[in-house]
C-alpha cells in the first residue's frame, strides 16, 4: 500500500493527473464481486463512484487537513486525491451495486446477475 502513497511528492493537487492509484483487493463469491480499496483520509461525502459503459470509476477527494504541509518537520507520506478505474464485465447487476466506507477502506459490492451465478446441474436418472 505504502509505495503508492509515498510515491507522490507533488503538491499540485488541483491537476487531475496528480493522484494516487489506491491499492485494491478484489475477491469473488458465488453471488458477487467485492472490491476493497484503501483510501485513507477521504471522508464519505468526498467519494464519487460512477458506472458508465462497463467502467467503474472511483474518485476520492482528500480532506485538505491532510494535504497541508504547514509546520511539517518530518515526512514519510504525502496524500493526494485518489482515482482508479475498473473495466467490469456484463455479468454485473448494475442496479445492485452498493458501497460502504469504514476506517478509510472503501468496499464496493458488485452483485452478479442471476444468469451468471453458478447453478447446480441435476443428473437425471435413466
Amino acid at each position, binding site marked *: 500500500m505504502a509505495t503508492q502513497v509515498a510515491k507522490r511528492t507533488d503538491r499540485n493537487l488541483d491537476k487531475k493527473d496528480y493522484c494516487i492509484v489506491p491499492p485494491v483487493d*478484489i475477491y469473488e463469491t458465488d453471488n458477487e464481486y467485492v472490491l476493497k480499496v484503501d483510501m485513507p*483520509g477521504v471522508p464519505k461525502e468526498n467519494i464519487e463512484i460512477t458506472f458508465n459503459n462497463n467502467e467503474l470509476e472511483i474518485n476520492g477527494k482528500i*480532506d485538505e487537513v491532510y494535504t497541508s504541509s504547514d509546520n511539517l518537520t518530518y515526512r514519510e507520506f504525502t496524500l493526494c486525491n485518489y482515482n482508479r478505474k475498473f473495466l467490469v464485465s456484463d455479468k454485473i447487476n448494475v442496479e445492485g451495486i452498493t458501497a460502504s466506507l469504514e476506517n478509510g477502506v472503501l468496499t464496493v459490492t458488485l452483485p452478479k446477475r442471476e444468469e451468471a451465478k453458478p447453478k447446480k446441474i441435476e443428473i437425471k436418472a435413466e
Partner: protein
Amino acid sequence: MFTTYDLLDDVLTLRDMVDRFFDEASTTRRRVDFPYVNVYEKDDDIVIRAIAPGVSSSDVNVQLADNTLTIEMNRKEDYADKPYLRKEREFGSYKKSIKLPYYVDPDKVEASMNNGILTIKLTKHESVKPRKITIN
C-alpha cells in the same frame, strides 16, 4: 596534457555511473517501515499523523514512555478464504517508535482515528517550558 578521444573512456564512464548507482543506493533510498508517519510541530505542540486504513481504533496501541512514542497496530485481513482476483493491500502487525524532541505532558495526549488516519496530539510539559527567573 592532451588526450585523444578514446571510445573506451565513454564505456568506463558508463560503468562508473552504474557502479555509483548501486554504491549509493543504500544511502539515498531510505527504507521506511509501515505505518508511515508525518510529524508536525508548532510552538509547544506536536501532531503526529499515521496512515492506518482498515485498522479499527481497538487494534491500535499508542504508548508514551521515556520521551518515546510507540505506535503499534494490527491490521487484520478483512476477508478470509475467498478466491481473490487481485491482492495489492498489505496486512499484518506494525510497530513504530518515534523519539520526541522534548518532554511532553503525558496527561495531555490525545489520539483519534478518522477515515483511516491516526492523529496524535502532544503538548510540551510545563516543566520544560522556558521560565523567567527572578533575581533577588
